[in-house]
């Protein structure tokens, strides 16, 4: 008041000026918000933290993080969470602690693609591998990872590496090369939109797409891809090599397939497989060819071979699909199921378990038969005697129960993928006990996967034609009728009584040339050679 009395004009002028300046300041503030809006639109700034933090389970965020967050250290908060998650992962590998931290980092700094990339990868790979059936089927974790990656893409539609990662996960974990191709193509598009960026190597995408086409058994499309690739990178050795290989090995067969000249196509493929039994592309093409010929078992064998040699999810998916189809058909046919369940990829994993290689190439591999056995209920009276005649998928109420190998070949027994007896000499009876029931994959112990693998001794193997009779797959189906009278004991047979019943493998067949992702290369590992599967 005294100021006003004393210097009324001056002070009120000052106040007016201040008010005017504040008004201008508010306008400037609006301009600032507008600039931020433009920045968000231009993709160089993140929108408000309000939107992104609501997904984060707040109880997972420590006080430090929250404090940092509200002090404007958002990026640091994210870094802290990330660092913490890495620490948990390395020290404990305890997913319930690792994962929320990673998710928090993603939510706090959603515009940093690597967070999403690595989180998605952890879910689809590490989490899936470690947790699998314990909580959810493996695929669910893979899908979870893919979902994470796709969320990351929402925030980072320009993150080439996330597209690549999603594509790869689809291909690698879900056996879906077509979706993989879609993502790889998106990655390429984004890459081209962001031309001038040097932080990613663009070489990966066309190669990847080409590989996917190879995997899909579409060498022509793959070839086109390689040609595109070589326009940009004329000296790319992978492109050159692949082009040559594709032209040399697959193109004709493929074209023959396109013109429905299936016999010619098959002939070409089989000729090639004779030289290189582990050739993945050829196997894939052959399987597709067999399917188009409605030769389910032929296709099944081809897919199995590919899946075994290459741990090829794509092949595995088809293998599972066909197994289920066979199962369905057999059920209709016989009135009883071949497998007492829908074969999942989990089961297929056991069925396709890598063969023991300790004995080296001298021991040819046999074909396994997987039994999915429901364990007895504890209170149920056992209707079976000490020796049983069981079928795959039978419920066994005896504890323990036995399986006898009367096949005439050595066999190994696996429970839940773990070898429990090896190099057994027939006739051999193996006893399964309760403590074998809980395996690494089935913590609940509610079901049991038993696999018996038969071996043909190497000296004998020489006598077998290096061929794989695809019809053997039917054996379990036939076995009950053939084997039961022949072998009164409970027998799990896989071609017992028939030497062709086991799938003899070429020892070290077709030690291929280059490995890796190069198409047409054959595996140096014992590969499921198959050719001359004509009946």
């Amino acid at each position, binding site marked *: 008041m005294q100021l006003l009395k004393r210097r009324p004009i001056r002070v009120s002028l000052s106040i007016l000026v201040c008010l005017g300046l504040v008004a201008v300041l508010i306008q400037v503030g609006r301009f600032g*918000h507008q600039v931020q809006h433009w920045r968000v639109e231009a993709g160089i*700034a993140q929108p408000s*933290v309000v939107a992104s933090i609501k997904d984060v389970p707040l109880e997972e965020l420590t006080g430090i993080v929250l404090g940092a967050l509200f002090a404007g250290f958002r990026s640091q908060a994210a870094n802290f969470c990330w660092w913490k998650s890495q620490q948990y992962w390395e020290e404990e590998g305890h997913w319930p602690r690792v994962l929320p931290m990673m998710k928090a980092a993603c939510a706090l700094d959603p515009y940093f693609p690597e967070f999403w990339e690595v989180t998605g990868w952890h879910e689809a790979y590490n989490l899936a591998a470690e947790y699998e059936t314990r909580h959810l089927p493996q695929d669910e974790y893979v899908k979870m990872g893919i979902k994470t990656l796709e969320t990351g893409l929402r925030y980072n539609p320009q993150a080439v590496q996330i597209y690549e990662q999603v594509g790869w996960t689809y291909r690698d974990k879900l056996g879906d090369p077509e979706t993989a191709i879609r993502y790889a193509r998106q990655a390429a598009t984004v890459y081209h939109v962001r031309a001038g960026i040097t932080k990613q190597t663009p070489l990966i995408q066309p190669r990847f797409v080409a590989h996917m086409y190879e995997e899909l058994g579409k060498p022509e499309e793959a070839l086109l891809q390689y040609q595109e690739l070589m326009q940009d990178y004329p000296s790319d050795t992978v492109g050159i090599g692949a082009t040559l290989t594709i032209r040399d090995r697959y193109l004709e067969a493929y074209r023959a397939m396109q013109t429905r000249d299936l016999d010619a196509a098959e002939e070409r493929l089989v000729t090639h497989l004779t030289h290189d039994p582990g050739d993945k592309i050829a196997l894939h093409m052959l399987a597709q060819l067999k399917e188009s010929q409605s030769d389910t078992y032929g296709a099944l064998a081809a897919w199995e071979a590919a899946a075994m040699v290459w741990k090829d999810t794509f092949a595995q998916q088809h293998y599972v699909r066909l197994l289920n189809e066979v199962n369905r058909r057999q059920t209709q046919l016989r009135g009883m199921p071949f497998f007492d369940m829908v074969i999942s990829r989990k089961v297929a994993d056991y069925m396709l378990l890598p063969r023991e290689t300790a004995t080296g190439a001298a021991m040819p591999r046999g074909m396994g038969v997987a039994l999915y056995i429901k364990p007895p209920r504890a209170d149920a009276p056992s209707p079976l005697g000490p020796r049983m005649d069981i079928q795959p998928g039978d419920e066994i109420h005896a504890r323990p129960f036995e399986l006898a190998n009367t096949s005439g070949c050595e066999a190994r027994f696996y429970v839940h993928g773990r070898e429990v007896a090896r190099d057994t000499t027939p006739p051999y009876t193996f006893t399964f006990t309760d403590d074998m029931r809980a395996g690494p994959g089935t913590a609940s112990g509610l079901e049991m996967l038993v696999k018996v693998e038969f071996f043909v001794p190497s000296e004998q193997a020489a006598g077998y034609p290096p061929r794989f009779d695809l019809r053997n797959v039917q054996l379990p189906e036939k076995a009950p009728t053939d084997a039961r009278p022949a072998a009164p004991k409970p027998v799990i047979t896989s071609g017992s009584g028939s030497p062709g019943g086991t799938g003899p493998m070429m020892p070290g067949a077709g030690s291929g040339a280059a490995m890796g992702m190069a198409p047409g290369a054959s595996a140096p590992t014992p590969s499921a050679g198959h050719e001359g599967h004509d009946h």
Partner: protein
Amino acid sequence: MTIGYATFGEAIRRRILVIFLLFAIVSIVGSQIFKAFSPGEEEKFVVDLGLNSIKWFSILIAILLGAVMIPQEIERKTLHTVLAKPVGRGQFILGKFVGTCLAVLFNASLMAIAFFVVYAIQQKGGFDVSLLYQFALTCMELILFISIVVFLSTFSSTVFVLVVSFCVVVLGSTATFWKNIPAENEISGLLFLGVSALAPNFEIFDLSRPILTGAAIAPDMITYPLVYGFMYTSIMLLLSFVIFNERQF
């Protein structure tokens, strides 16, 4: 200008600032410990830590210089001797502002050089022009912040300036948050509105995202924040002049 020079001199000779500077440089160099992560993450950590160290240590220095030196000068009556000389009050404020800016930007430049070296090592000789843009924007941000501190210093005591300027940093760094946060009632709504209308927006000076993703930065995205910073700074200084002119000591 003499005042600016004296302020700069005082700032430079304060030992605590040297300690801060060393600490900042150590932490920038220390960001090299994130070697364990993948290259992308490592770059992010180095960039985040480096840029933020520059920014936050500079802000600390600015708070110390601005919030401590000007009120102290008033409290200890050094100001009386200065104003007894033919020096306008506006000149005094401008001199303080310029001197503080010089000192802070000088320190920030030292930190930036340290950071650029670390970044070049981490990137194996690489250098990103966006980093220079970022540094320019950070400088503008610091200038803006100093103008606010000077403004606060014109009418309040050290402790008040310290507290409020820290709040300003917090609010400014989360400006969009306050604009978007849903208000629970009218009072908080009014509060948020006031904050988002008046608080400076420090978010627009951040280029770390395009730096990390390698996205192109449109020139507008540099000039607009600069224009904003310039306007905000001007208003703050004008307000300081008006208030300081009416101030009694």
